[in-house]
């Protein structure tokens, strides 16, 4: 693993991990693992905008992305790819970030549609975020309004190729430069923005703690951070509660 020693400035190339291991057997093993990874991807498609319309044909029998080993998955914890399809409103962006942070590494983000690249035709709208990679690292953008399924498949192939070569590691960027991403998030959501995921601790855990992980924005986060509390479960449906508590009891029951 390459250690990052300084915060990369604008335009700097990322230290690319070319590190082949010295043991030839280990090399073969690594390659095998990467090949397996690239051929079995679970995809969480977060259908935020109209671009999602092109996904059903890409997924089903006509273009059939399952032949590439890509399958839809319903929960972020089990997904490898986060597919953001189209414009992301500020309100949705919060949810996308929460989803992204819950995914296990390695994780890949694909931005479909011009709207994720640059706001698309909503560039002037107060309600949509413009540049997805300001808020989370994006592996591949598939441009077009909307991109045809061929383009979607081509983009996915590009990602597969990157994973097989071992160059699809933009997710590490989120940990290494968390301060930058958090700053952009705070710019939209306010200083007291906080997510349930402790990204800094995860960065330490993955060994991806870089000089850009902490900074003035994370200091702000620490200042405003409230300890997480479990959500309160409250059921207040009188008929249901009456039925639950047996025929004998009458009236409203409240369960906390």
């Amino acid at each position, binding site marked *: 693993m390459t250690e990052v020693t300084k915060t990369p400035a604008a335009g700097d190339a990322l230290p690319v991990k070319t590190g082949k291991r010295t043991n030839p057997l280990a090399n073969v093993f690594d390659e095998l693992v990467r090949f397996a990874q690239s051929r079995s991807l679970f995809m969480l498609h977060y259908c935020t905008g109209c671009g999602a319309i092109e996904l059903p044909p890409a997924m089903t029998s006509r273009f059939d992305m399952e032949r590439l080993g890509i399958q839809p998955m319903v929960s972020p914890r089990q997904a490898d790819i986060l597919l953001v399809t189209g414009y992301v409103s500020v309100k949705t962006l*919060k949810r996308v970030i929460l989803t992204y942070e819950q995914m296990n590494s390695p994780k890949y983000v694909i931005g479909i549609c011009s709207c994720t690249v640059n706001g698309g035709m909503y*560039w002037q709208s107060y309600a949509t975020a413009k540049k997805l*990679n300001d808020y989370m690292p994006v592996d591949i953008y598939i*441009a077009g309004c909307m991109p045809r399924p061929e383009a979607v498949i081509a983009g996915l192939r590009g990602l597969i190729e990157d994973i097989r070569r071992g160059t699809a590691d933009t997710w590490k960027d989120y940990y290494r430069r968390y301060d930058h991403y958090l700053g952009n998030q705070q710019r939209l959501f306010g200083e007291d923005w906080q997510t349930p995921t402790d990204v800094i601790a995860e960065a330490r855990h993955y060994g991806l703690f870089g000089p850009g992980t902490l900074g003035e924005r994370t200091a702000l986060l620490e200042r405003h951070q409230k300890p997480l509390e479990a959500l309160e479960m409250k059921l207040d449906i009188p008929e249901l509660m009456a039925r639950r508590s047996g025929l004998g009891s009458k009236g409203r029951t409240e369960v906390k």
Partner: protein
Amino acid sequence: MSKDLSTWLDTLLNELQGIEVRRRSSRRIRVDVQPDALPALLELLRGRASYVHLSAISCVDWIDEGEFELVYHVWSYEIGSLVSAHTRIARDPGVYISVYDIYTPAAFFERDIHEMFGVFFEGSPDMSRFILTEWDGPPPMRKDFDSEAWVNAHFDFQDYQPDWLQEIEAKGGGVAVRPDEQRFSRRDLDAS
């Protein structure tokens, strides 16, 4: 029956003082009414004239005249026609009374207008945020809200990369943008 009702309504509306009725077609009537008379008109339309369906309340910001125009669209299933009641209120302070007691669905339209235009409806059951739950700027549909300036203050744009286009054309889609290329953002440049 419905023919009778419609004639009856026309006669009645023409009798009323202070409102202006224009029949646009056999199924559309436009009524211009003073703000203090609007609830009474709606009451009449709903109660006696069978206009039971409030399909929408729309709002127009006439910034030069300093007025908001509120348009209440009510529909009658019996007569099969739509009455649009137009009224204008002062833009400042932009307060009007709710018609929630006449038409219950008005609660949602009024909440929406409150959010988008900042018109406060007295007596509406809930004037809290509706769709823009994360919004803390000025009401965005007002004409004096400068969307572009707001966008420039809150977002950065990707830089134009001519080679991306060639790459797209060559590959048929899917551009890989490495994080070091993404690093550029207008704000960072401004800071340095």
